[in-house]
């Protein structure tokens, strides 16, 4: 195997990254409106999975409730986009103490969703510190299960079971873009920004602290890392990411109700992040692609009969998921790492 010197290896990685971004940038030109929409969803899931990867992959905390945090972001966007006027128009009467404006540009609600959901995540992370493993799984599971019922209960704000209809997406600021293209670039624009944020966090002290906690909490504490602070931070960051994803989803679908973020979404997000590869940002794209396209494949599997799939697309999905875990348990990123590792042996220099 050829051993590449480290700087060259870094250059290769950067080129790959630039190439990926370039491809994403021009993809819409080659696709019809429907595919653009599908890839917008890939972008949305990408953001959600980045967050989940930080939580589960880097800080080692399991979450079965990531979909619920997406839901929170979605509701924030829906409620703020409609504003008090919009809600009243639909027959809801939100209490006056909630700071609702008169309706906002959807794009502007995205950072608000980021902050609000992040805060909720932090608030959740604090008591969750005492829980680990199974108990934490249950706690996050409880959040996922409770979101639909809580949303239905406080229907004066959330629209209850009937949900909230957002205005159909429109390209703002007079840009010469079709609405689907605008949504695509909005989603991937956010994805690019959040990818950089995630990358910086992971490279920085925070990321090292997370990894040390994941690999051995006792040793981390002995080294002066405060698990409480960093674990809570991980929850905050990952939910903030989920909030953005949910916000973008609400804008894309133009409708939010308790059924749009069911428990199954949280479970599928977890499955996708493992398939992509935990503890690595590059595998996330694979997870996002799988999450968007595997259900579609399951309904029309080319290798299996059409009528079979009509009755049991779940069978195809479940079996494929299991097979993927057999084949690449470390996720796709893990597979790539194993291929690439022999290529990166450090070249001995004179000074060694």
């Amino acid at each position, binding site marked *: 195997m050829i051993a590449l010197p480290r700087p060259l290896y870094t250059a290769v990685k950067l080129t790959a990254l630039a190439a990926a971004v370039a491809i994403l940038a021009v993809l819409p030109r080659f696709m019809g409106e429907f595919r653009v929409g599908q890839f917008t969803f890939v972008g949305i899931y990408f953001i959600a999975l980045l967050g989940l990867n930080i939580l*589960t992959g880097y800080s080692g905390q*399991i979450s079965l409730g990531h979909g619920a945090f997406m839901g929170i972001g979605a509701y924030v966007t829906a409620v703020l986009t409609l504003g008090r006027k919009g809600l009243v128009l639909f027959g809801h009467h939100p209490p006056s103490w909630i700071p609702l404006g008169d309706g906002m540009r959807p794009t502007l609600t995205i950072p608000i969703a980021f902050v609000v959901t992040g805060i909720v995540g932090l608030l959740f992370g604090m*008591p969750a510190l*005492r*829980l*680990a493993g*199974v*108990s934490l*799984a*249950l*706690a996050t*599971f*409880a959040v996922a*299960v*409770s979101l639909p*019922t*809580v949303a*239905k*209960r406080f229907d004066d704000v959330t629209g209850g079971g009937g949900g909230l209809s957002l205005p159909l997406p429109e390209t703002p600021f007079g840009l010469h873009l079709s609405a689907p293209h605008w949504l695509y670039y909005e989603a991937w624009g956010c994805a690019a920004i959040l990818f950089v944020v995630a990358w910086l966090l992971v490279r920085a002290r925070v990321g090292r602290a997370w990894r040390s906690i994941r690999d051995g909490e*006792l040793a981390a504490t*002995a080294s002066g890392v405060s698990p409480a602070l960093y674990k809570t931070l991980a929850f905050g960051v990952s939910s903030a990411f989920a909030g953005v994803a949910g916000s973008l989803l609400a804008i894309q679908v133009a409708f939010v109700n308790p059924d749009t973020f069911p428990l199954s979404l949280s*479970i599928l997000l*977890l*499955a996708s992040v*493992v*398939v992509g590869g*935990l503890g690595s940002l590059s595998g996330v794209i694979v997870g996002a692609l799988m999450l968007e396209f595997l259900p579609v494949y399951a309904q029309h599997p080319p290798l299996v009969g059409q009528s079979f799939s009509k*009755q*049991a*697309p*779940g*069978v195809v*999905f*479940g*079996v*494929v*998921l*299991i097979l993927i*875990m*057999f084949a690449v*348990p470390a996720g796709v990123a893990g597979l790539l790492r194993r291929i690439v590792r022999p290529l990166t042996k450090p070249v001995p220099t004179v000074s060694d």
Partner: protein
Amino acid sequence: MAELLQQIVSGLASGAIYASLALALVLIYRSTDVINFAQGEMATFTTYTAWSLMHHGMSYWPAFALTLAIAFAGGVAVERVVIRPVERRPELVIVIVTIGLLLTINATIGWIWGADVKAFDSPFPNNTWDVHGVTISIQDVGTLGVCLFTVLLLWGFFRFTTVGLAMRAVAINPNASRLLAVRVGWMLALGWGLAAVLGAVAGMMAAPTVFLDPSMMLVILIYAFAAAVLGGIDSPVGAVVGGLTLGVLINLLSRYVDFVGTELRLPTALAVLLVVLIIRPQGLFGHRAVRRV
């Protein structure tokens, strides 16, 4: 007063169902260190199998026994075929595999038996007792009885039999167990087989009240999971106490706390649970893992 007692009695009845499935979860966790998300679906599948047997003329007890045998074989098969390839992998990978299993089995049930609700026979007579204004159904008493009996069996199994001891050893330290000539692979398969049997029992006890429906156990799994963790994920006694407590708690909360009503029953009960877990992270009867540096 009679109403309060009635709510408690009903809570115990539903709690017994949660506890029954929780026992299966605890057994798998105790023997293989894994949360099996597919436990509910496996239970549903075996219950549907029992239904098919009875539908084709078999009477209750032979069908019951045959179903338990099928469940055992099925559990062992699942462990050997689906779990074994990923046994040594990180816990999360095994969890994802059980999720895949959940999706597969759930879809298969709908495909084979359809989505229409079906009635399921019960070995207990369909009568009720009236005790000072509180109605107690024999079915519920029977379910509770079976549940308690199962806990007793499990406790005895783990405490007093060689096989039970071997299973516990394998869960704590598979490598050391191997050195002691314990067939680790078969212990794991046995764990899954027994858990599948427990699941089948849970399903057949629940089905007369809850009726057969492909998503029958999906909802109960939520409660069973909560009950198991509340009781201490490695304690069978805890699972039962957890289940019964959860059942009663939900009823009392929804009846007597207006804010909760019937809408926020489940979230509130889960919130209470989590408060308990924050105070006592290992659950009511669980064992605290003390890490010595």
